[in-house]
């Protein structure tokens, strides 16, 4: 199925997205234009043959240059057949071109999706503050395809719209002798009206997308919390909330279709108006007596062949505007600061074996938070190798923030940050991050098998199953006892929908231990376990896999304190050591 890759390069976009979309593989994309041109020209040549066919039927001498009246039936049939062939080839080219546009569009979509995915993988928590998961998914679900519509629709359709429009005045001038300038002017006027309506349409479209995004995020909340909503009998008020946005969406939609339909009505009828105008101007202004062939040619070209290009014209603009706004949104997201931006300054730690008196980590003057309400204030901290410490503190006191600063997820400002006596300069380097092990507060599960979730890999082979079982044992997780009948092969649903909070936390813990890293950060990750199980697990871990590791554990359960060597309390943005005995006393 899937191949194990070596490290994939991250997809980066340094120029505006729409430029990247158009410039990438540009010779292929230029080919789309050329083929479109040929198709448009062929359609008009076909109309030319038709005119000759009609003229040859009536023996009317046309005043235009294409004026070789057929002398026999054979010639008439040749005109008809040539017209047919031109149409067939033109339509073949058009469809091939549409397909090619799609190929190119999918190519760019894949690239953009990867860029977006890579960005969401590497984006610092700090930059993400106000982005919901739903919003990020919407970027992928809506904006990626919308921005590549440039290739899928705008380029091929645009070409098949504009080339006929541009070529028509010339073709008519050549075949019937209509004045070039006036026809051009007429085409330009219609194009302008369309552009204005299309602009208006794209505004509705933008609003429509915003509203749809809000509604989707409500729907997401609704399904995720359905259990509670049912228990609280809050279904109706929550539905009202969804319906309210849905109604706003519908109202906007109604305005949008009204505008769109006016636009469509104008474009689908303007061909007939063109035809009438051309007829009147030839008769009145140029005092021409038209031949049947000429009357038909004007009608065929203006009234019929231009029909489709003109109908496409407003959509061309709507899609183009839409693509541009989407690509702007993508750009905004892709420009947020991510870890990727720090990869450049890699730093190696020199002394791998350090002298034992040096602390493993030493921090002085760590500050973090908004200026008005800082969370961490001049925090000092150090820990030696092999130490196991606990950090207590009220909710919101900054325990998690502290750990996130160590990992570089939050941009803490350090006066001094030493790892094994070496300054960790500026941003946390990859080297330090490689030493860290982290068990998050909110466990995250992959939509895959239990085995994959423990191994933290997709489609992990069953070869190492005994090892997996050992790790699960460490966290008191026996699949059979937990009701997971397929053992390690059990499929854990999307985001672990089918596991209880405690089960998720234990899995998350097991997964981290598998990673064998020396400095372990446990961010209140056992809150949903009962106290007995928690004790059992900690005992097991500290005697086994975590025995020689350095551990920082945040918690508010004092029962845990028995297992650690030191206890700190997070208060007023600072860490202060408290004696274990004292800390345990507070309990009663």
């Amino acid at each position: 199925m899937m191949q194990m890759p070596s490290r994939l390069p991250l997809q980066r976009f340094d120029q505006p997205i729409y430029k990247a979309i158009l410039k990438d593989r540009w010779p292929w994309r230029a080919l789309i234009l050329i083929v479109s041109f040929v198709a448009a020209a062929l359609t008009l040549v076909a109309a030319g043959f038709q005119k000759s066919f009609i003229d040859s039927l009536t023996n009317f001498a046309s005043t235009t240059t294409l004026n070789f009246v057929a002398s026999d039936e054979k010639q008439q049939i040749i005109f008809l057949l040539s017209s047919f062939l031109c149409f067939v080839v033109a339509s073949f080219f058009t469809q091939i071109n549409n397909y090619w546009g799609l190929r190119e569009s999918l190519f760019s979509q894949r690239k953009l999706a990867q860029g977006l995915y890579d960005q969401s993988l590497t984006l610092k928590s700090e930059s993400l503050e106000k982005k919901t998961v739903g919003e990020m998914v919407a970027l992928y679900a809506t904006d990626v395809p919308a921005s590549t519509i440039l290739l899928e629709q705008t380029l091929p359709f645009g070409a098949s719209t504009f080339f006929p429009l541009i070529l028509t005045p010339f073709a008519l001038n050549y075949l019937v002798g209509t004045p070039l300038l006036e026809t051009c002017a007429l085409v330009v006027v219609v194009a302008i009206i369309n552009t204005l309506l299309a602009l208006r349409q794209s505004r509705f479209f933008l609003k429509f997308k915003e509203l749809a995004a809000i509604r989707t995020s409500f729907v997401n909340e609704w399904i995720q919390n359905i259990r509670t909503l049912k228990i609280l009998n809050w279904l109706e008020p929550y539905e009202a909330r969804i319906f309210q946005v849905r109604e706003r969406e519908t109202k906007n939609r109604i305005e949008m279709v009204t505008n769109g339909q006016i636009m469509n009505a104008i474009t689908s009828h303007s061909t007939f108006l063109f035809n009438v105008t051309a007829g009147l101007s030839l008769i009145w202004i140029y005092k021409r007596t038209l031949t049947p062939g000429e009357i038909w040619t004007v009608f065929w070209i203006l009234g019929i062949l231009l029909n489709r290009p003109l109908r496409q014209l407003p959509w061309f603009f709507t899609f183009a505007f839409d693509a541009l706004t989407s690509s702007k949104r993508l750009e905004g997201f892709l420009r947020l600061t991510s870890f990727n931006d720090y990869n450049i300054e890699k730093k190696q730690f020199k002394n791998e074996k350090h002298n034992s008196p040096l602390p493993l980590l030493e921090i002085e003057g760590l500050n973090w938070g908004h200026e008005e309400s800082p969370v961490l204030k001049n925090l000092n901290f150090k820990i030696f190798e092999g130490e196991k410490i606990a950090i207590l503190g009220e909710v919101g006191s900054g325990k998690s923030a502290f750990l996130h600063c160590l990992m570089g997820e939050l941009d803490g400002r350090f006066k001094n940050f030493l790892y094994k006596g070496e300054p960790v300069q500026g941003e946390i380097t990859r080297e330090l991050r490689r030493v860290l092990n982290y068990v998050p507060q909110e466990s995250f599960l992959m939509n895959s098998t239990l085995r994959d979730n423990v191994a933290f890999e997709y489609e992990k082979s069953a070869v190492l199953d005994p090892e997996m079982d050992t790790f699960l044992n460490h966290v008191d997780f026996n699949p059979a006892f937990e009701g997971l009948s397929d053992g390690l092969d059990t499929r854990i649903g999307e985001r672990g929908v089918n596991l209880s909070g405690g089960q998720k936390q234990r899995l998350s813990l097991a997964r981290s231990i598998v990673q064998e890293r020396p400095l372990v950060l446990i961010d209140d990750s056992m809150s949903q376990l009962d106290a007995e199980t928690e004790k059992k697990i900690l005992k097991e871990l500290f005697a086994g896999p975590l025995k020689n590791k350095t551990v920082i554990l945040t918690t508010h359960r004092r029962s845990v304190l028995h297992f650690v060597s030191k206890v700190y309390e997070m208060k007023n943005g600072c860490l202060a050591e408290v004696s274990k005995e004292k800390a345990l006393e507070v309990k009663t």
Partner: protein
Amino acid sequence: MSFLGLDNEKIFEGGFKKTVFQTLLMAYAPFRRLLVVVLTVGFIGRVLVLANTNVIGFWVDSITLPEKLPKLMRNWPAENFVWLLLALTVVGFALTTYFRIKFSRISSRAVSSLYDETTLRVSRAPMSFFDRNPVGRIMTRFSSDYGNIFRLFGGPLAEFFSIVFDLIALVILLTVVHSSLFILMAIYAAANILVYKLNRNKLREARRTLSSQRGPSLAHFAETAQGAISIRLFEKEPLFQARFAYLDKMYLESKRKTVALVLSYVFQMNFLSTLWFLVVGFYSWWGLRQGFMSVGDVGVSLGLILFSFNAVQMFFEWLTQLEEGFVGVERMDDYLRRPLEAHMKLPSTAIYKTGHPQDTRQEEEKRKKTEFSNFDIKFQNVSFQYSEGHDWVFKNFNLVIPQGQKLGIIGRTGSGKSSLLQILSHLYPLAEGSVAIGSNDPNLNGDLQSLRKSVAYLPQDPVIFKATLRDNLDLEKTYTDQELIQALLKVGLGPWFDSLNQDLDYELQEKGKNLSLGEKQLLGLARCLLQKAPIFVLDEATSALDPVTEKIVLSVLRQEYKGKTLLFVAHRTQTLGICDEILWLEKGKVKLKGRAQDVLSHFEKVNLDSRQV
């Protein structure tokens, strides 16, 4: 909670079910009369516009064969024909525009009702439905499926109808030229339908595959966004990148196939149209030579057949596109017609008749006024399993919780604590027995919704909506600002509320991201206080709290829940001091029930013993 496997995504096959069309009829039902008028106007408009071709035929004949013309036109100068063309175009334009606007507005309204009705039913679906379907899967019905319906049943459907009008008008206008052309057009239509049928199933399947391929890559994207911190810390990016690349590729590949099929189909149609251009061209050329057609007629037939190029192509293009809309309707219809959870009724506002039980207005009014006088909880002979074939969670379980009791519930994971709460709210159907609050037993003509209303519930991680503080406290909008603030003060959120400048319209983020766990918990507590329910269930609600916050919670409970029932599910036995009695569950049975201290000391002893084994 017991583990339930996921269902596979429903696969739709073959033709659309009858219910799909019934659903659409229900959606359009309120606009029936207006629709008839609108469609008629639209049709007349298009006939007028297309008659341009025939007028041009007359014009040409006035040059070559004036005697063939109707008397009135015989001596017309050229500009008269042009004026007639102008008149037809302008009137036709006006009528068509009316039709297009009116029709697409009606359609937008109609499909919106489909959305609302589906929401009402999914809300009330059995819990097992949500256990067995991942969030992403349910979401797609409300996002991309509805999106497709919404998109296609607005403008495109109006466009589609105006193309249908064109096709009918074309046939009529051609028959006016010469009746034999009708036969040619009939053959042409049959050939087109054949080509459509040859392609339809392939296209339909491709679209359905495309719909179902969307979910996995979206879900994976969402998953990654949530676990990004862990993924990057452990440098698992390549794995996840590869996974995403694979899922995204599957989706894009399926998209490519679908569009390739569409385009190949369009080309087949184009070829057929062009071929028919040739056939009609030859036929009218022959007709001219045989003398039953004029040069004008030849022109009209070629002109109209050229028109049909576009019309036929767009007809089938839109038809295949509309299939996407129909696929959407099919998928929503599937949810619209699934059974509701037992004893649940649709609100009186639901308008579709889908055979589900529905409340009347009076019943709803009555429910609002329900007073809870007797609220003893009775579990009688309860046998319960999450689904057939799974282990029994309870077998012949009996328990009475008299009103006003403060009951602690303990037991190891899997002992049935959470399940007890789930069946108290009738979230899952019982295999046997009954669960009633007071005299209200949904199984015996009781009312499920007032039963649920009588229980306030505080889980470990309370739900915080992305909404204002006000909405989060009081979604039903029944309380005054003063009452809301009172509740915040009671639970000790006063200082926090001050830090928001006492703004009840402060926007809370999704899942309460801008709140600490303790704040969320206290907010949840405030919400429960406002609910004024006689029974309050705390489901491990204090296990993640620091001691200070926990103290606040406990003291609030003592003050506010005098005389009310309190069910306190906890892991940490030390927080159960507030309880009169403790129930110790083990494997779905009452292991021990009695005074708090007795049960707890026994519990701790047994648990410590078992550790040592």
